[in-house]
């Protein structure tokens, strides 16, 4: 799935959750975040949950196209390692 928004926060998180859940039910989860420049903790938390759930059900979880803005937010949130989003 590709996120076509510039910014994803608590205001959009419920819609994003629906999409993510649908993706998860289909199989592996791959999120293309290359358009994304800003996220907040509610979204990070959801990504963490998705990653965890994938690990538990042996599905693959990956994020593609993390740009520097989002990487910075991951770093500031202390979730960089947890999300497996290391510096590319």
């Amino acid at each position, binding site marked *: 799935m590709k996120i076509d928004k510039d910014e994803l926060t*608590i205001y959009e*998180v*419920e819609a*994003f*959750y629906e999409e*993510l*859940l649908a993706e*998860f039910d289909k199989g592996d989860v791959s999120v293309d975040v290359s358009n994304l420049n800003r996220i*907040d*903790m*509610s979204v*990070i*938390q*959801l990504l*963490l*949950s*998705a990653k*965890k*759930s994938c690990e*538990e059900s042996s599905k693959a979880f990956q994020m593609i196209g993390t740009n520097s803005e989002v990487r910075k*937010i991951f770093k*500031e*949130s*202390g*979730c960089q390692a*947890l999300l497996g989003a290391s510096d590319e």
Partner: protein
Amino acid sequence: MNEELELFVEDVDEQLTFMENALISMQEDGVDDESVGALFRAMHTIKGTAGMFGFDDVVGFAHVAENLLSDVRDGKVELNEEMIETFLQSKDHAQTLVDLAVDGEALDAQVQAKNDNLLAILKSMLPDAKKNLLKIDAEILQEQEGGEKTWHISLRLKPHFFASGMDIINILNFFNILGEVKKLLCIDTNIPALKDINPTEAYIGYEILFLSDAAYAEIEEIFEFVMDDVVLEIFEATDMDMLQALCDSEEGLREELVFAGFDNASRVRSAGVKEKELEKTEVKETKKETKKEAKKETKKSFSLRVDSSKIDQLINQISEMVIANAKVTQRADVLDDNELSESATILSDMLEEIRTGIMNIRMVQVGDSFNKFKRIVNDVAKKVDKEIDFEIVGGETELDKMVVEKISDPLMHMLRNSIDHGIETPQERKAVGKSPKGHVSLKTYPDAGTIVIEISDDGRGLPRDKILAKAITNGLVEENNNLSDKEIYNLIFAAGLSTAEKVSDISGRGVGMDVVKRNIEALRGTVEIDSKPNEGSLFTIRLPLTLAIIDGFLIQSGNTKYIIPLEMIQECIELDAHYKKEMDGNEFINLRDSMLPLLDVRSYLDEQETQSQRENIVVVRYGEYKVGMMVDELFGEFQTVIKPLGEVFNNVVGISGGTILGSGEVALIFDIPKLIEHKLREINSHGGT
């Protein structure tokens, strides 16, 4: 601007005002601990709140200022004149920074230069390490929390955290400003599986190791705005008891901490400790909590910020209640029902109390706001090389906050004028035998339902002839006029009349006094001038005390009922045959050996003749003027709710509004100052011809 930002701006305003007042009071009365504390708190709060919005320039600047203030507070640096001056500049600069940040603008070169310059000065005032070393002895070390420490912060977001609207990542970033984040461990164990998660609830938590010289309270303040939305523990990383309690509270936490490199965690026991121990720590915790809470309570009771529109709304509702109650009273009279009448009276007493209470909420002491003039006076005096002894009298007088704010600019303008034009240079003063120091005073006191603000100086006085000449040139008055000195002085309020030969950046540009007058009139106030050559000038501003409800006195003239504001009434007398004979066609009577001009309301407002047997005179006073108003019936006191009248009434001089009586009738409210002015003008014009 969103609501939070608005609150921030208000808060900064308040803090900077505190700061300015503290600085000025120290300039005058010497350094005291309380004022230093206020300074520190102001900078500290600004730094804290600005950080929440990511205003880095503000935070950076406030941080340096706060550091220096902290050293001043701890007695490491002495607060001298020069430093106070620097802090005054810093206060102005902080305001500029905040304004720019709020508008989302970057610093321009000039502000940046000022910023760098001030930062350099502030930093140079910091004590150097050597001085520090000398002072630090065991006692000080124990007493103050100075020196870097490693803190352990344990944070769990409560489920409803996101509803607070604060971004936890921004809050975390704030740690980097206050010190150095050594370890940031995100606790994700509580995040449910994707199928079970509620995406709008927060599940996340943090364990943070943080190296900083900040005190406990400062770290706690980072979370000031989300206090109710998080579970927070802050303790020194070396506090093994707290760490033990923390590890015991969450399964697997100790292991996670150890894994993440929280070294001390390896020294605490893993979960499953003796019950007794656990109890002990719990007791300790609760003790700490209660202590914290008590501290917060005292802070809260200090003041409460309320949107003024809420108070206006209350006042409106009270007004409606007063009218409704008037109806009940009237009905009780008609029905001759004593019990109902008594209840209505009690109710109206209570309404009166509530009304006074609400009005009081809006009242503030003028001193708080006027103190800032001291600084302006100092600045202006310096600029024009004059020595001024400035005095504020009656700062405890209370006035509606909105009025205080609106009167501030006109007052500032008049004070500047007094110093720039009124007061002579020290040399000139010596030459005419005055002390070289000029005296300017700002005096406030209540008088007959109004608040009077007087600005007086002992300068050269207003140039009567110059004003008159200029007014004639400008065509404001005719050449052969009969103006009194006072009327001539009041000409300076006319637009476009400035007699200053030199246009300085302080005053003399010909705009100003007319604006001053307009501003004051917009507040339903009046302004007057008196002046004596070489003795000085006196500006008298009168402002109404009241807002929407006044105590009125109900009268009737012809077929219409009128209200006269009760505070302005001096007495009522019957216009009997003796007086009538004395009048003999003139509009004056002799009241205890002084002449009292009369205003016949009936003829003034074209009322019809009445059958009333008696005629009465209500003597009203405004300032030093008295007029007797000839009316028919007197009804007595009436709580009057002022309702604005439509545009049709705009040109009726002497009527300021209307009100609704219990019977549903409309009564008109007299504008006494305007009526008196009208009467005096009439007398003068008769005298002239």
